[in-house]
């Protein structure tokens, strides 16, 4: 199925879902979950924006849909005194509420257009009156506010701010794309080996800037030892490792090499 509409055009997951329901001409109260879920996922896969924030909002809905789908596929355990709840009910309620707000926001837009036809006049207060500055009785304004109370207010703001921080997720670092290509480094080590025949492990590391680079290089050497393509010597603990390259060809890293 081709996707004629770009996902970016939707305000959010509910908007997209309503669009699908509308397009398939289905009753909102009887959503064919399998079909809608498949279509929904197809939209997400075609999403141009790879913005994590936006993407995650759509993914939450995808998960909800899949959850409903699986619940509907499971055999229903019939309990006599319990009313059978359609797994789709909650979703239907949300969609209806959202639909209602879309409906009233249209009405409000009309109202806004009408109201924009009414014009106002800027104040024309004579200068001598406009300059009049009202004396504000600060003491009266402060009333029975005490310093203790002010401090309590401040403390509660600070406390609120700690509560706002998600102590688990705030410790997560930034997720960055892995820039190190394992098989490339593996081949690079072998090329280096062919060129130099005998070299030290430290020489190899000179070219690696990140911790991950060092680890991967080390793993690469281990793999070459396993395959009998290099011989290593180390005179004493923590001394540099002397590597002798024995092979004359370059092999590719096995898929499950590491």
């Amino acid at each position, binding site marked *: 199925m081709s996707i004629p509409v770009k996902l970016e055009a939707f*305000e*959010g*997951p*509910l908007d997209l879902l309503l669009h699908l329901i509308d397009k398939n001409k289905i*009753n*909102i*109260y*009887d959503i*064919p*979950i*399998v079909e809608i879920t498949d279509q929904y996922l197809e939209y997400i896969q075609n999403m141009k924006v790879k913005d994590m*924030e936006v993407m995650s*909002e759509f993914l*939450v*809905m995808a998960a909800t849909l899949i959850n409903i*789908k699986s619940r*509907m*596929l499971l055999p*229903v355990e019939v309990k006599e005194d319990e009313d059978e709840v*359609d797994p789709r009910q909650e979703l*239907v309620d*949300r969609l*209806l*509420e*959202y639909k*209602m*707000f*879309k*409906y*009233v*926001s249209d*009405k*409000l*837009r009309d*109202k*806004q257009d*009408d*109201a*924009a*036809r*009414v*014009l*106002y*006049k*800027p*104040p*024309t*207060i004579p200068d001598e009156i406009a300059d009049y500055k009202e004396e504000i009785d600060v003491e009266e304004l402060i009333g029975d506010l005490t310093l203790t109370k002010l401090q309590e207010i401040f403390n*509660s703001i600070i406390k*609120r701010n700690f*509560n*706002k921080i998600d102590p688990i997720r705030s410790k997560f670092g930034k997720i960055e794309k892995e820039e190190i290509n394992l098989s490339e480094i593996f081949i690079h080590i072998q090329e280096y080996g062919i060129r130099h025949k005998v070299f030290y492990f430290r020489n190899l590391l000179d070219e690696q800037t990140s911790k991950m680079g060092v680890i991967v290089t080390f793993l690469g050497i281990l793999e070459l030892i396993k395959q009998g393509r290099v011989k290593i010597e180390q005179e004493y603990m923590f001394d540099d490792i002397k590597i002798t390259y024995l092979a004359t060809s370059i092999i590719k890293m096995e898929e499950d090499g590491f």
Partner: protein
Amino acid sequence: MGLKEVEAQLEAILFTIGESIELERLAQAVEHDQETTKKILHNMMDKYEDESCGIQIIELDGAYQMCTKPSLYESIIKITTIPKKHVLTEVLLETLSIVAYKQPVTKLQIESIRGVKADHAVNKLVEYNLICEVGRLDAPGKPILFGTTEEFLRCFGLQSLESLPAVNPEKVEDFKLEAEEEAEQLTLDI
């Protein structure tokens, strides 16, 4: 002081100030009680309905403001340019509707209805002075509660929140009946 003179005073005040003024302040200025002042104002509002009048008085949540009649918009823009109002995107309008009908409401509640983050929309609406902070919810974290402003009423031509367009309950009922009928036939033919 005669009634006519009070009318003249109120007219002059509303004209000069240009902005909305609370009934309380108007009453103080004309030295009458609020009840009487309100009656006089509404009497004036009736008079302004005459087709030879180009101006009107509108009520905004207990405050009064003088403005032109909408029917004269075309004549006015012929000789003057009107500053552009903020264009409200779909997102902003949806968020604003939720605040208007659900107020006081927290950002989280808005987000759960729309299914997307509301930070940007809420900040923009606050910046446009269409919504404002009205308090804190007594819940963990004391989240901010938002409500609509007087500017909101003015921008949408509403006298008060009561004049918000009604959400047609019949329509919702119709949906529900329909669904129930279908639910009876519902088998697991997913």
